[in-house]
């Protein structure tokens, strides 16, 4: 598998550290334990398009959100996590 880092270009997957589902919302300090349990432990684990975090440890050190079909490994989009948060603001 190869991932196109928005900063570095296309690189082999072993330059990245995969880190599971992207887009989980960290509960705020006042949230209940059960919200925290959901956040830390429960996953949709979808078969299909799925946003996943990858850390470009061998390159620019950016955390990326890679949108990829977990059945075919086809990658639809890669954005830097930081940029995505900025855009959402």
């Amino acid at each position, binding site marked *: 598998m190869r991932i196109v880092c928005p900063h570095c270009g296309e690189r082999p997957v072993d330059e990245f550290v995969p880190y*599971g589902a992207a887009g989980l919302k960290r509960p705020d300090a006042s949230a209940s334990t059960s919200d925290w349990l959901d956040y*830390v432990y429960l996953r949709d*684990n979808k078969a299909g398009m799925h946003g996943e975090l990858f850390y470009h440890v061998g390159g620019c050190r950016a955390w990326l959100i890679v949108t*990829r079909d977990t059945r075919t490994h086809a990658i639809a989009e890669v954005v830097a996590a930081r940029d995505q948060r900025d855009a959402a603001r």
Partner: protein
Amino acid sequence: MRYSVFSLLAQALNGQKGWKPAWRDASPKDEYDVVIVGGGGHGLATAHYLAKEHGITNVAVLEKSTIGSGNVGRNTTIIRSNYLLPGNTPFYEWSLKLWEGLEQDINYNAMVSQRGVLNLYHSDAQRDAFARRGNAMRLNGVDAELLDRAAVRKLVPYLDYDNARFPVHGGLLQRRGGTVRHDAVAWGYARAADQRGVDICQNCEVTNIRVENGRVIGVDTTKGFVRAKKIGLAAAGNSSRVAAMAGLRLPIESHVLQAFVSEGVKPLIDTVVTFGAGHFYINQSDKGGLVFGGDLDGYNSYAQRGALPHVEHLLEEGMALMPMLGRLRVLRSWGGIMDMSMDGSPIIGTTPIDGLYLNAGWCYGGFKATPASGWCFAHTIARGEPHVLNAPYRLNRFDTGHLIDEKGAGATPNLH
């Protein structure tokens, strides 16, 4: 037909004409007492023990493809009970005991081979961690030996002892560990369950789980609706997808693990050996192929294949451990999809939905668990509550913090 010296000779003389299908290719009936989703090792073993131990024979195993096409048919076949934590050791030891009597139980030779499992250590800290584990095993009545470098060298002389980046200091050996012929496990349990009346329905994919008033009533399949009093999920790498049909989210991610087999060579590696400074492990199949594997690719996947860089990483480790492997060739590589749970340990138990039972989260260690998993899951389904052996594997252990995290890797499934 029972396999015996007599039936074998008779068939040999008869040109093998009299054999019958090892199991009936059943179509699902309208209703069952228990429906098991998933015809892998665990599902089939569950059906066998439901029938044999609990007398529940109105059971169907629904398999979306063919028997054994999942992880039971693609794993590296290692069995062992060299676990550390209290939730694990007794369970896996029970599994090992069941392996030891398996061929007589199911009248099928799955070639259980207790050739020993050797985990190498490469530092004092690792030695001490292995001692902790070995001692826990001994407290559980399990065999464990801590070997020093000289003893390891005697047992497996072909490792790199002279020029290794991470020298071998010794190993933890479980002599009763070993390998089992993977496919035969699926076939043997299928045949045994079938003979007790269980319906094994292949090419029958479960597409929906029907729940009414908090209780299951049956499953929709590609072969129609099947009513069921109880439903057991044993869908290995696909647990999240199947559980989602009943509205459950699980503490699980699906990941691909690659495995490899080399060209067949004359006997060379007599034990199962695992590299402690990486994730490589190897054994030799009875056909002569060296079977080896390592770590996950690491990303979420439902495709049964991995990436080339991971192959390179793994084989670097292989060469670091055994420089003699250089000229042997990889014959085939493949992948399997595993439920990686959030603490690296399985889940067997009840769910918030009445009549729905869950067997999942086996990570890459569930093959060795097959007999005990089936045995405990059958108990859980039959009695509606877990056996003491699988009580620690309950789904809500994350809520209470009773994690069973052998590696201490935390809620990062791809690190287990």
